[in-house]
């Protein structure tokens, strides 16, 4: 006895897997006898084919940007974890051991690890003596070449960012504002008014935040880019909002401002998963 829902459930997985259901003998008779199921099959197949046709067109530059921002965040989290553990702020040694269980001290191996820790100390002392000795040798007048500075990496955050909580809060607010702008329709007058007001408020505070972040040049650079966005946003004219907002959104996207705002907000959170 043909049951439409049961039959459709059975063939759905095969349709998604791009299998030719109509060519399978066990389904042919039911497809022939039930026009409604046959229609379901044809329409579902068209849908999956259309979905298969989606091709994400992104340039290598865009992919590189995404990858860099991801790596920056991973390195930032790693640095934050290490910094916090080493400073003993929020994680004790046991917490560190829990995070990196393979580093946990094993009492049975204590003697071995003590020996292992003495050897590098001796080696370091020997190297120090050699260095002092070499330092006393007369230096050659010529032939010394300055080692070229390594090229600056295009990584946004390489270590724990020393930002004060107010600046971090400011970055969070900025991120929210930018997200709202990205979602904003130029025709939405209320949203636009809110965004303009928020932009004015942020501009008023921006100089102070730049000063506070002076020791972190990438953050200052990002804030300068953000400042131009804020100014343009504050000055958006209702008459030309369509064009202005489009331009602002494009610049936010091109500069990766939202992701950067997020990258500079240090966050440490415990996560737990029901892993098997």
């Amino acid at each position, binding site marked *: 006895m043909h049951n439409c*829902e049961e039959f*459709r*459930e059975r063939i*759905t*997985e095969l*349709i*998604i*897997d791009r299998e030719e259901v109509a060519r399978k003998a066990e389904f042919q008779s039911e497809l022939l006898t039930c026009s409604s199921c046959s229609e*379901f099959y044809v*329409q*579902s197949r*068209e*849908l*999956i084919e*259309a*979905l298969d*046709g*989606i*091709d*994400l*067109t*992104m340039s290598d530059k865009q992919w590189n940007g*995404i*990858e860099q*921002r*991801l*790596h920056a*965040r*991973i*390195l930032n*989290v*790693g*640095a934050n974890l*290490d910094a916090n553990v080493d400073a003993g702020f929020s994680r004790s040694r046991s917490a560190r051991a829990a*995070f*990196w*269980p*393979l*580093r946990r001290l094993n009492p049975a191996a204590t003697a071995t690890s003590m020996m292992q820790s003495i050897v590098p100390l001796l080696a370091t002392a020997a190297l120090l003596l050699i260095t002092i000795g070499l330092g006393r040798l007369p230096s050659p007048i010529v032939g010394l070449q300055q080692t070229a500075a390594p090229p600056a990496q295009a990584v946004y955050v390489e270590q724990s960012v020393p930002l004060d909580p107010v600046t971090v809060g400011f970055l*969070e607010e900025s991120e*929210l504002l930018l*997200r*709202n702008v*990205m*979602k*904003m*329709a130029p025709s939405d007058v209320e949203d636009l008014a*809110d965004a303009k007001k928020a932009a004015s408020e942020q501009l008023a505070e921006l100089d102070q935040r730049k000063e506070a972040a002076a020791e972190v040049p990438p953050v200052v650079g990002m804030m300068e880019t953000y400042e131009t966005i804020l100014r343009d946003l504050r000055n958006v004219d209702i008459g030309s909002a369509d064009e202005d907002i*489009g331009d602002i*959104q494009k610049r936010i*996207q091109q500069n990766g401002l*939202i*992701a950067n705002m*997020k990258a500079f907000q240090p966050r440490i*959170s415990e*996560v737990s*998963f*029901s*892993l*098997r």
Partner: protein
Amino acid sequence: MAISPAEEAELVSRAQHGDADAFCRLATQHHRSLYVLALKYSGNHHDAEDLMQDVMLNAYRAIHQFKGMSSFRTWLARIMVNSFLNQRRKSDPLAPTKRQEPMEEESEPMFYSKNSERHSEWSVHNGLVMKQILNLLASVPERQRLMFLMKHQEGMTCEEIADTMGTSVGTVKKTLFRVVDRLRQHFAIPAVKG
């Protein structure tokens, strides 16, 4: 560049010892497919990047829990499900009205159909189809959408999806049927002019 299972195991081991660079290399192997999935799930680039980053960071924080009982990719899929479904929007006054709407044109991802010129009529036609599909997908409840994308995009079996999402195979099959049925009822290929 793809890495061998042995290389992957080596990178996992190094990452478990706190080597962030090793984890970055692991992340590089998976971030593109994860990003595309997140893009289809969220409908816009910014949320997709956030989602992808959250998954990777959660994986990095939990890497010591990876025992190698499954592949790294399978393990990552579980974290992805948790991250996607547990994602909470920050307090955002515009969120209730804006975020639930299907993707807006301004923040629409750049999708084009394969084998077509960008500016051709077909491209426009296919662009409409893509937009329609992504809007339809956005209307599907999150958990169901995720199950569907894991099947369609990642090619996971119903058993794997059930295992990853902590549900039964029957539920996964029923869900897939419901999603496809819902999508196909609202899906219509626009006519090409001329």
